[in-house]
């Protein structure tokens, strides 16, 4: 059994209003040297009965068709043996 860990983030050039708000909150709290803050999504999907290669192809398609919007977002993922 495999687990896909998927990261969806706004493309570098896209203004991240949430990230900017968190950055100023961190600065208000006194944290110094806070650079850009970018907020994204983290998805964990358990995949039953797939070989690794097949699972990778499927997750790739999931990202492309639904999980990320290619106009504004980038995605990446890793596959792990479930239970780890």
């Amino acid at each position, binding site marked *: 059994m495999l687990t896909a860990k998927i990261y969806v983030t*706004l493309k570098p*050039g*896209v*203004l991240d*209003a*949430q990230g900017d*708000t968190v950055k100023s909150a961190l600065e208000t709290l006194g944290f110094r040297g806070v650079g850009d803050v970018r907020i994204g999504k983290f998805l964990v999907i358990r995949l039953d009965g797939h070989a690794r290669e097949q699972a990778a192809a499927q997750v790739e398609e999931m990202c492309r068709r*639904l*999980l990320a*919007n290619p*106009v*504004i977002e980038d995605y990446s993922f890793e596959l792990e043996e479930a239970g780890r």
Partner: protein
Amino acid sequence: MKFGIVVFPGSWSQQDFYHVIVNVLKEEACYLWHKEADLQGADCVILPGGFAHGDYLRTGAIARFSPVMKEVARFAERGGLVLGSCNGFQILTEAGLLAGALLRNDCMHYRCTWVHLRVESQKTPFTSAMTRGQVVRMPISHGEGRYYIDEAALKQLVENDQIVFRYCDEGGELTKEANPNGSLDHIAGVCNERRNVLGLMPHPERAAEAILGSEDGRAMFASILDTFARA
């Protein structure tokens, strides 16, 4: 003329559209439940505002896979008129029927207020009764209306005259204060290249009667009816 108003779980502007079409304009309207792959012979399809499927994942991301959306895409491909307002605009971009995407407002607030819009193109079936440069007043009500598109695609939009509305001040100037959500290039509404699909964040259906504070939205309905009558 018959309008089909698509209803998703979480839509909320469908009754406002229905009211304007049936009670104000005296035309025909029906609701199209998102699970039905049938447009019931509608001459114009409306995607209303709201929070289809709770806006889960991204606004419009789940709604675009509803059975009705395949029919809406086919209808648009045949040249049928499709109008999306607010969440409807978000769904149309997610479905790839319109270019760009709508992001979280730059102010991080949900904005529920009146805005001024400059009509940038009257060459659409939805704005033919308006004049280029005309300033109209309509309400907005959204948390994710910041229009974004990459530079190359923006150039295309400009070249093809696909930017239909821009946020402006009362005098028609594109000031920073008049842009309620940080939209790129003040964009409030765009159409597709064929000009039969239009999306905008403001609500024309909430500005179609004087008692509600503005009748400016009515010109959009008048444009649609006029286009249909000529066809």
